[in-house]
């Protein structure tokens, strides 16, 4: 009985560690740097995603 509890606890610790690592990654990525701006971003009319533009503006081969 005790060993099953121990296993479950260790499993839960692993799960939590996973969540913690994801959190650390998100902080590094700057996900929490500015909690204010995103809600206004949808109001910005002329924002296009620079990432997509590479395909659109590359001259036709």
């Amino acid at each position, binding site marked *: 009985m005790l060993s099953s509890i121990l296993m479950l606890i260790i499993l*839960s610790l692993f799960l939590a560690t996973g969540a913690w690592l994801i959190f*650390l990654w998100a902080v590094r990525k700057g996900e929490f740097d500015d909690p204010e701006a995103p809600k206004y971003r949808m109001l910005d009319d002329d924002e296009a995603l620079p990432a997509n533009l590479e395909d659109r503006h590359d001259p036709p081969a």
Partner: protein
Amino acid sequence: MTSATIQCAHCGQNILPAERISESFADRQVDFCCQGCRGAFRIIHGAGLGRFYRERQWPEAGLPTGAYRLGIDAAALAGQVRSVPGGNELNFLVEGIHCATCVWLNEKILSRLPGVLEARLNYASHRARVRFDPGIADPLAIFAAVASLGYLPRLDGSDARQQLRLAERRRLLVRFGTAVFLSLQLMGFSLALYAGYFQGMATDARQLVQWLAGLVATPVVFYAGASFFSGAWRSLRNRAPGMDLLIALGVLAAYGYSLVALIRGGEVYFDTAAMIVTLVLLGRLLENGARHRAAEGIERLLALAPTSACRLEGEEQHSVESSCLRPGDLILVRPGERVPVDATLVDGTSEFDEAVVSGEALPVLRKPGDPIRSGTLNLDAAVTLRATCAAADSFLARMAALVEEAQACKAPVQRLADRIATVFVPLVVLLAAATVFFWLGRGVGGATALLHAVAVLVVACPCALGLATPIAVMVATGAAARRGIFFRGGDVLEQVGRLQLVAFDKTGTLTRGQPAVCAVVPAPGTSAETLLRSAATVESGSAHPLARGILCEAERRGLTVPCGSGARTVPGMGVALEDGAGRVLVGTREFLAANGIPLAAAAAGPALTEVHVSRGAEYLGVIRLDDRLRPETAPALAALLRRGVRLAVLSGDRPRTVERMTAGLGIEERCGGMTPADKAAWIAARQASGLRVMMIGDGLNDAPALAAADVGCALAGGTDIALETSTLVLTRPDLGCLVEALDIGRRALRIIRQNLFWAFVYNLVALSLAAGGRLAPIHAAAAMALSSLCVVGNSLRLARLPRQKGR
């Protein structure tokens, strides 16, 4: 190409004499080949992009080679380069980014430079981040590459500070996140232990869970809580016991006690230690956010002054850092640029938008000899200025210093907690010492006496006390935000609840801030409709606030206004339009007089803006415009008076205007002609006499007063600076929200007091039990849970705000 050939001012092609269209623009004559070119020319100048014509070079395509090769200091550039893993990094601002294509172009060109590893340009902030190999590429080449594209790269001094702040915030966030994840685990273990306390638990299972709890709590205490220990050590060295010391004492006592209990057998308190750290870290995180925003306000203020300026040296133009400008330097300010330092106008005439500086909506005409403040926006024409002081002494810098000073003076809520702690900490330590001696005197063993003393330290730690204010604040601010009322931080909510005096700015706060027609006075023989329609036709293409006021009035009266194209604007004077029935002039008294129109001596009200109209040689009459009170001003002020709040108006306007506009509103003190520093001083004087003051304003000139007041309040639509320096923001430009904010603040204050009462009662009961040696861990746990539940439940009542009563 002979000199007699005339070229179109827009497209540069030769004009056939028959097709030539001449127009006078900014005191010179310009010619166009067709109406299309004339339209394009007007649009480009109207958008403040007149420099386009100076910086293009026909017939070669593209930009002139030297246009942006302005002396950028290699040493200053080198100072901005940071070393990062895998190369060096340079951060700078790129001026002239308008669309995503600009971003794409810059990134492409930069990443093709030899030695550049990565180039990223943020579309929103115009901030470029270039990582390069210092051996191959150099920062000057990067700047040159951006400049060769026709964009203006600029160093950004605030960048380093911002990076530093961001790093600090991230560190705090990681600590808090770690504490939360581990505390969640710990919570599970504690639940098992509490259940075991009631139902019984196998000793080996209990020991296992206890060991695990200890394992999980250790990093929370010593990693996440490290800042408390260093703070406690600092406060010990300075002999000034603070909140940090109390927290460190409680956490260490709980942790140490539990460690002993773990080895000797007994109940452990690991969860107490971890929860204290986690909750207090949450408080720190919220406070850090508030400070961050305050700092941003100052930075944005300084950002209004451009960091680089164009200095004239003989015939040459040099781009220099604004901070290098000395009094006496000649600087060129093009349309659409802001003035870098306080200066006097030397050459040229232009209108300046001083809205951010004075809150005045109308552009102001400046002639040679006029003083110009830093931060104002040049609208019409390129002008030459002579600097009158260095950037560090300029209006904006002085303003930023005033704001900073006021913000530093305002005691943050943290200091209040520290003041309480200076009393509470020695008291608790004394109580713990008394407990030891009492139990030693009773003849129990030294170890038992010590354990009782530690229990006192553990329960004294303010867990529910720490929750009492933040949770009420969180619920109340959330409920307020749904109504468009934003409190910046919990202390603001408290202070709003305690307000005794509210000071208003006039323009844009009590009034709409936009001129509206208040009287149409036609000359004899003219109808009011004709007068208004003539004026509206001429003004129909203008975005000038006065023009908008006139057009609004015409629309309100249901007049159909024919669109008058080809109107000619004389800055600061008026507008003229040729149409079928003669020349229509709309403008100041002087404008019409200068054009030989005899003015009927229309009596002028003292504070009104007058617009005179004539057609041909005939004087049509005058339209008077004035700023108006907001419709909700009177009821909102009455509601404030009913709540026992005193009112005042602080305005930079003439005292007589202030008196006239605010008559009959029940305002106690009405002060006019005040400078920004005057306003801040006025508020400081009222605060010194013991009043708690709120300031409401919208302009940059209110910023020091907003920061100095206990609560600074900005209405939506105010300048960014006002929004940043104020601690209360109403997102609807409706003064009725202010009354609601006051009610919410007062209710929240009441709830916070109740919360503190409950938290203290439980703490006191637990303290006395602990000192009496009767504190079983289950009592402590129950007291903690109960007090927290009381506090949370009581706070949730704030979410149900009463429907706007008493409006």
